[in-house]
């Protein structure tokens, strides 16, 4: 009996230590913010938040989970996260269904590249229609005449094409399909634009990492991922013909060129299929989404302040880390718009200092 009681007391002590620690953390100076969403910018966000943790003297932990842009939007709508992250800006309908006003803050610029697994890692050229037909399953072999046409100097093998796409709700898919809808009528009619598509062929992977994983493991595979995923894993990616007829390499320069347009006040704009002659045709902003009014779900003013501070840091110093991970910095005029939007964030109606 004594042993039983003792063990109960011990268990009780352990449990209460954790609960106590949990409650105390609320009052303590460490703040933990939770974000979720796009895997498109995840390598960048991971790096940012790792740096931010040290920068704030181990006081602010930003826990970011890459569950796909769809997940980011959904979890923000459910008010389970402090911020969402998405490369597909919320539609008018999604915004209407949201419980309160949501602000979009572009955090970086990236490129969706077409990566593939072929012997000798050739550098291939693609056109928009070609990509659409490959990903619709209309072209099934690598040595198809249409691919040869654009790549006459390359020895294309007689391999089956295995398409890799996203199995989760993805902003990367949205950007990719948005581009294909604009350049291929067949794609527009048969598949369309969206975060989750009704794919006719191919294997599904979870997250940008999942798609890259499939391409990496399967000879003859082709997939669409954010540039850094291909780079970090030494996977080849192709040049894509843009609207003006130039074959463009995805890099910081061509992505920034694609973003040299006027951005509206709410920053919701697509920059695919750019008119810029040097612009990469599948570029995109990636956004952080937050509620304008931060007093929800039991949040306190400190948490709101921490979030605003984080957003301001992202809009300024964090941008210095973008380029080393091959994400372009947000243009200066967008930074100004961001500043305004961030300053509009309120707590109980009052702007947060």
């Amino acid at each position, binding site marked *: 009996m004594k042993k039983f009681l003792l063990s109960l007391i011990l268990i009780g002590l352990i449990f209460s230590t*954790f609960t106590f620690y949990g409650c105390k953390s609320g009052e303590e100076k460490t703040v933990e913010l939770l974000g979720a969403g796009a895997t498109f910018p995840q390598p960048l966000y991971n790096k940012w938040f790792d740096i931010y943790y040290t920068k704030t003297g181990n006081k602010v932990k930003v826990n970011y989970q890459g569950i796909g842009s769809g997940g980011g939007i959904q979890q923000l709508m459910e008010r389970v996260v402090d911020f969402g992250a998405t490369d597909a800006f919320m539609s008018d309908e999604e915004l209407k269904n949201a419980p309160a006003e949501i602000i979009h803050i572009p955090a970086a610029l990236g490129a969706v590249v077409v990566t593939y697994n072929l012997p000798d890692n050739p550098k291939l050229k693609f056109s928009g229609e070609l990509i659409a037909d490959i990903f619709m399953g209309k072209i099934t072999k690598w040595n198809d005449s249409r691919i040869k046409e654009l790549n006459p100097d390359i020895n294309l093998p007689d391999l089956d094409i295995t398409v890799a796409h996203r199995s989760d709700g993805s902003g990367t898919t949205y950007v990719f399909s948005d581009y294909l809808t604009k350049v291929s009528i067949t794609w527009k009619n048969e598949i369309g634009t969206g975060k989750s598509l009704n794919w006719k062929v191919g294997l599904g992977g979870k997250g940008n990492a999942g798609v890259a994983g499939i391409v990496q493991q399967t000879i003859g595979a082709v997939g669409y991922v954010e540039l850094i995923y291909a780079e*970090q*894993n030494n996977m080849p990616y192709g040049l894509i013909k843009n609207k003006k007829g130039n074959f463009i390499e995805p890099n910081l320069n061509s992505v920034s060129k694609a973003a040299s347009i006027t951005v509206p006040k709410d920053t919701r704009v697509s920059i695919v299929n750019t008119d810029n002659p040097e612009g990469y045709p599948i570029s995109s902003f990636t956004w952080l989404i937050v509620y304008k009014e931060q007093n929800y779900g039991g949040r306190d003013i400190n948490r709101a302040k921490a979030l605003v501070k984080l957003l301001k840091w992202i809009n300024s110093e964090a941008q210095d880390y973008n380029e080393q991970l091959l994400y372009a910095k947000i243009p200066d005029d967008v930074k100004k718009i961001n500043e305004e939007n961030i300053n509009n964030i309120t707590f109980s109606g009052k702007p947060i200092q």
Partner: protein
Amino acid sequence: MKKDNIKKRVFNDKLYRTFVSLFSFLSIIPLFLIVYFVLTRGIKYINLKFIFSMPKPMGEIGGGIFNAITGSFIIVGISALISIPIGILVGVFLSEYKEKKYIEIIKIFVDTLQGIPSIVIGIIAYLWIVKPLRHFSALSGSIALSFIMLPLVIKATEEILNLIPIEIKEAAYALGAPYHRIVLKILLPSASVGILTGILIGISRIMGETAPLLFTAFGNQFFNLNIFKPMSTIPYLIYVYATSPYREWHNQAFAASTILIIIVLSINLFGRFVEKKWKM
């Protein structure tokens, strides 16, 4: 004529024995294949740094899984704290009232609970806890896992209690002991070994569970002891790392799997050992 028939029958018999023995041995090969491949690829990446440091940002080399290790222990520990008392109580109930007609129905309910796919448990935990509280948390993960561990503890308790000879209870009654004392001070202690085995098997089971944690504990790159916040766990980490393209993460997934397999199989074996040693 008869001689040929016997030869054929004896031959068939030998054939049958060969096949059955062969297939039986073939069946345990996967165990060794899996353990061997995971251990050989994983063990070279395990060192003190791997166990005690935090993960590095995506794509960078190095880093460790300390947050996942502590996360797993905390989430499993709390889940055990929830499942053990409730499981024992229900087990006692099922054993003590076993003559009643409704017991069979409740037993079916327990069986059903055990058979629920773990992803559905994840959905329920999300609907019941995460969504209303607007919080991903280690605690919601623990609660989800306890749905899985509960039937295991219940069954172990019930089965071992049913094995206790009724004479012991009758003797205690004859001596005038009150009912609750009989259960708590006589029956349960006698059953303690069987119950402990059930608990250990339950723990080794939930330690390896991933699906229910996908929408509850969620994951965390940082070290976290706060059960009201998201927490990382080893199986979740293995899933995320294994399906990524990063070679570094693949290596870490194998290393983490090695650690997990060693923990899980050890607890499992220990449970069986305990049961064997104290078998009545």
